[in-house]
């Protein structure tokens, strides 16, 4: 059996990446993801890898772009404001169809927010794309340290398989929370070689590769480019949708939640069940592609939906779209946080505790 260690989500991300063969990391410090670059700076040189501390997130993302073009498994990690800075580069990486992984350990708010505390307010930006040009990225949302570790391996595999950018979305809570992680290496299907990598033509088949723009790659015709991308995205939708359904077969209320909120919601479901209330949890694991059909079916079976997210309401838009008005969809958003008296920083910013969700569930089921 694989070694079992108590590590936090951030370290699990870093270790997962290394176990996926990522030996090149380009990053910039920002709270609450600093444990990732710190770990990489310590560990990568030991395995012949490279850690570069960039001067800003815009540089990080272009180092990732360059590294992806060079054919290596490369990544960066950041938090919300840094992720905003990366949007241009993300759009370019999507255009060039090169595989890479970016982790966003999101934090609360637009702008500086709370300077690094918890919140899930990047959902819309991450899933819909903050950059220009109608591209898509696969988005994985782990909700435990083990999933952080496993999802990084999955992320690199999916990126290589489809030649897309994979975003791993966690948050302050998932990043900081330590849990036992089994350091297991996941098995995936074989992948095609990267004959398109830039490294000097003599270092591969002697044929040169050059990249100018996507339209150029597709004969200068944007419709042909978008047709190709639509096919890629359809393949991803057909085979890569992932979600967890928990105690939802006989539920009369479906709680939909992801990431750290889903942890709280899962507990709330258990508490509700203990009271005899038939609540169930639906947790999207891929936020894009979003498990639309599965959400709709589960929602229609239950007849009522409660979305729980630590945000003013972003996931709820996707859920409403999926449900198409067939059943009522309620939201327990950031206003559902319990805010203690006293402190203004940690305590004062509040948390949506399982008990807060249970209260809401009691009113609905």
């Amino acid at each position, binding site marked *: 059996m694989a070694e079992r260690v*108590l590590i936090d989500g951030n370290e699990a991300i870093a270790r997962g990446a290394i176990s996926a063969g990522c030996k090149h990391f380009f990053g910039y410090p920002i709270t609450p993801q600093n444990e990732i670059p710190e770990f990489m700076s310590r560990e990568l040189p030991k395995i012949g890898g490279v850690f570069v501390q960039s001067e800003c997130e815009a540089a990080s993302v272009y180092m990732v772009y360059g590294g992806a073009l060079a054919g290596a498994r490369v990544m960066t990690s950041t938090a919300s404001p840094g992720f905003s800075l990366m949007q241009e580069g993300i759009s370019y990486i999507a255009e060039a169809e090169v595989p890479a992984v970016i982790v966003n350990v999101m934090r609360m708010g637009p702008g500086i927010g709370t300077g690094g505390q918890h919140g899930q307010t990047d959902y819309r930006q991450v899933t819909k794309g903050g950059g220009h040009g109608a591209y898509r990225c696969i988005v994985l949302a782990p909700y435990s340290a083990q999933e952080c570790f496993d999802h990084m391996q999955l992320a690199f595999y999916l990126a290589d398989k489809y030649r897309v950018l994979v975003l791993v979305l966690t948050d302050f*809570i998932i990043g*900081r929370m*330590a*849990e036992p992680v089994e350091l297991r290496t996941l098995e995936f299907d074989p992948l095609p070689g990267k004959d398109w990598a830039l490294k000097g033509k003599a270092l591969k088949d002697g044929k040169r590769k050059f990249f100018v723009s996507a339209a150029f790659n597709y004969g200068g015709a944007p419709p042909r480019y978008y047709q190709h991308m639509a096919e890629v995205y359809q393949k991803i939708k057909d085979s890569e949708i992932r979600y967890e359904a928990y105690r939802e077969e006989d539920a009369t209320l479906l709680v939909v939640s992801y990431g750290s909120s889903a942890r709280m919601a899962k507990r709330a479901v258990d508490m509700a069940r203990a009271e005899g209330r038939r609540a169930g949890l639906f947790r999207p694991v891929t936020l894009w592609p979003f498990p639309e059909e599965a959400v709709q079916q589960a929602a229609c079976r239950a007849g009522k939906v409660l979305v729980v997210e630590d945000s003013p309401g972003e996931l709820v838009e996707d859920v409403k779209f999926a449900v198409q008005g067939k059943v009522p969809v309620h939201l327990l958003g950031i206003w559902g946080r319990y805010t*203690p008296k006293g402190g203004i920083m*940690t*305590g004062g910013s509040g*948390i949506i505790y399982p008990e807060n969700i249970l209260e809401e569930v009691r009113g609905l089921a």
Partner: protein
Amino acid sequence: MEKGRTGYFELIVAGRGGQGALTIGRLLADAGMSGYRHVTYFPNYGAAMRGGESECTVILSDQEITGLAMLEPAAVILMGAAPLEEFERRIKPGGLLIFDGSLAAQKVNREDIKVIDLPATRIAAELGDSRAANFVFLGAYLAATGAVLPELCEEVLEKKLRGGKNKTLLSIDKQALREGAKLAGVG
């Protein structure tokens, strides 16, 4: 299995940055790794490096841990002058509160919880280092709940401090753990 082990323990340790609230939370989680299938340690603290509020939640369980934090914990350790009123109110009926009454402005009013009031800072100072107060609290918690064996905590502590310059620190920390257990007045 250890005495009093029920297969599920949850604890919030609250204090200010520098008091070691997170240190003992993490220590408990590390020590819990050998006896429990599931462990969560969730530290929550402000952006400031020192002096801000800090709090952590530890859960040890034989079953999958669905939550990771709770509004109403079964046990709370309050370091120094952490907000007593807030946490006293939140503890589950029948739960446990460990704090230093000599540093608190108010009295505990609830009668449906177990209260261990111990002058941890003074005890630690008498042992040679007031910064070991957190270990006095942890010792009391372990004695009162049996969540993990104190020896396991000492082992983890030894591993963590191995190669460290301060051998006296380790010895004081261990003594503080034992002293806390003694003063918990279990039974």
